[in-house]
């Protein structure tokens, strides 16, 4: 169970995996996520369901290596198995024909925005997608996004590809020139915060998918809670999608740094032990 069937390296730090999880694939919908646990000593980490195949019984996950767990996950190979994958979690995206909508995907957030854009397109919306990354190497799924969008704008922070802009610049232009019914944005929390600030003056309803720290994903720990206009909400069961204009972004950003000290120690320890393995391999003459 939970075997890795395919692995693709999308960039130095971004990997895609197709895993066996028929009972989850059966129920999965756009906007939902799973929690994966690599092994007995591992950490439960939430990842969006970037795609699913009910017939084949598989899920596609795309992740960025940002810490110990995702770095270690990056070393897993085809044929390896996760100890556990649980889901599908959270509410699916509410899809209907709204008219002209915009999907904004930043960095690894392009992966989770893809199935949403696809479903919105299938529901008859005119889909404008804006995808961006820090640099060209970190951009992913441009072709797949193009296939499900009526219009596609690509940006990079450093101008190495597409427009040299943050995603919020073309987003603002769109809202100034067209009637936009609704906006979805997924990416780093800081990007979503700025998207929210950009769309608020235009009063265009904006949905974000929040990626707080989680453990169980079922409403049991409260660790994922986020402060909204109308009180605290649990991202795993009340979300992960929320009205961007109601989120207390500073509280969210602050809560995401809570374990930073320990996370950094874990990363250093992981890199050290990996270096040791490499050194040993070299010493033993393994190329």
């Amino acid at each position, binding site marked *: 169970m939970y075997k890795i069937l395919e692995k693709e390296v999308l960039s130095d730090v971004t990997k895609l995996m197709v895993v066996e999880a028929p*009972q*989850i694939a059966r*129920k999965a919908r756009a906007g939902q996520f799973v929690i994966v*646990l690599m092994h007995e*000593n*591992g*950490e*439960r980490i939430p990842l969006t369901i970037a795609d699913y195949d009910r017939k084949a019984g598989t899920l596609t996950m795309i992740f960025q290596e940002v810490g*110990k*767990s995702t770095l270690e996950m990056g070393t897993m190979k085809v044929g390896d198995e996760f*100890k*556990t*994958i*649980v*889901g*599908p*979690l959270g509410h699916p995206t509410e899809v209907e024909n709204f008219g002209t909508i915009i999907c904004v995907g930043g960095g690894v957030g392009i992966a989770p925005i893809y199935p949403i854009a696809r479903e919105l397109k299938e529901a008859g919306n005119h889909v404008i997608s804006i995808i961006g990354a820090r640099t060209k190497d970190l951009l992913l799924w441009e072709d797949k996004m193009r296939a499900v969008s009526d219009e596609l704008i690509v940006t990079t922070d450093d101008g190495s590809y597409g427009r040299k802009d943050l995603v919020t610049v073309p987003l603002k232009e769109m809202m100034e020139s067209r009637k936009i019914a609704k906006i979805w944005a997924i990416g780093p929390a800081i990007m979503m915060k700025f998207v929210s600030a950009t769309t608020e003056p235009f009063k265009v309803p904006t949905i974000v998918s929040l990626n707080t720290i989680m*453990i*169980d994903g*079922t*409403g*049991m*720990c*409260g*660790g994922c*809670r*986020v*402060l909204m206009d109308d009180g*605290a909400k649990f991202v795993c*069961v009340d979300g992960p999608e929320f009205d961007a204009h109601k989120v*207390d972004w500073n*509280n969210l950003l*602050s*809560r995401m*740094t*809570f*374990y930073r000290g*320990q*996370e950094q*120690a*874990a990363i250093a*320890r992981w890199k050290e032990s990996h270096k040791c393995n490499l050194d040993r391999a070299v010493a033993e003459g393994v190329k």
Partner: protein
Amino acid sequence: MAELTKKDRMKIPRQDMPVQEPDARVKNFTEVALGFTQELAQLEAQRCLQCKDASCREGCPVEVPIPDFVGAVRDGDMAKAVEIMKSKNNLPAICGRVCPQEVQCESRCILGKKGEAVAIGRIERFVGDYELAHRTCDVKKGPSTGKKVAVVGTGPAGLTCAVDMGIYGHDVTMFESLHTPGGVLVYGIPEFRLPKSVIRSEIENAACALGIEIKASHIVGRTLLIDELLKEFDAVFLGTGAGLPMFSPIPGINLNGVMSANEFLTRVNLMKGYLFPEFDTPVWVGKKVAVIGAGNVAMDSARCALRLQSLGMGNAGPDSEVHIVYRRSAEEVPARQEEVHHAKEEGVIFDFLTNPVEILGDGKGGVSAMRCVRQKLGEPDQSGRRRPIPIEGSEFDMEVDQVVFALGTNPNPIVFVNAEGLERKRQGTVVANQETGRTTLKGVWAGGDVVTGAATVISAMGAGKRAAADMNNYLKDKSAW
């Protein structure tokens, strides 16, 4: 040993259980109470007067035949003690450790009227541990009935129901949302009070002997739904517990360092955060921790915090402190006596008649203090306990950097998707018949915390057992719905 007279028996003092010394045990997560030796168990068993209409039995929610098993221990016939015990209670190694004996069986012991009650819990634990080590009384699956039963939740209610259904001869599949079975016993109650190996052994043994399939990481309500279970199984038992944490509706609860006991304990116990970075899940502890509440959950949180502090985690320093902050007085504390006693010995500070009204930030996202108000006790409320009333003008700030809420829990509604006809009460508890566990939805039984709200291990087990008996009758066509 020669027969003792009643007088002789009454001269024997209640035997204490050997424990790890407080100074040593706050530095580790291994078990605090070390258990009776056979000699101590037999000596304690000698104290029992073998009363004819043993009142102690009435204090036990599952009516363990106390004089009989205690008598067998006294005679040194452990296998018999195990057999008697298992006729009513399949998990003595667990109940012996966690039952609030002082308000249950031991509160009714005749010896307690003048002196000290027989240490029924400690003897029971000895019997349970003996069984774990020797497995003298293995359960066997009854002749197969061909009926399929789904048990949702692997806590004490679900486990008890599953075991009995297996013994009756049904094919049992258990579903658990977490990656490890055991319910609160694994994610809530810490290793130093109930070793995980005890639970694992009980679950593996039952699963193996009775052919019970355990599907971990299957969330009913997400991965599969109740209406789907009803199509595939002849009967469904819901033992999903009360896992939803409550926070006080006061300002500041979203600051870093404020968390539910569930989060804190899950990180420590289920994810083994105390072994970070050996295990990947981090857990944080403050320099001055306030745990709000005074139940078992609060005691466990406070004692875990002490241990993490002595391991030097988080903000811990040489003058670290852990406080229990409770709005009523020492008299109303709902936790097991033994845990309160152990917590005090270990250095937990108790602030009674104190209630938080606001958590203050340090300007960097963390906690700097908790504003509290002093309370006085008024007339008794519905629960029979005197109602705490805030004393006007008594506000003060308590300097803390971590606040853990242990205020009780409600059932998690996640399971109730597509369960049309399943009635629930206002707090989210399932409406079920007390005797049979039947819910208002045909083919679905429920028991344990999901019906009663947060209660005890043994009451959950009792509910699982009663439901199993009724499910068995129903499946054998002996009773209509």
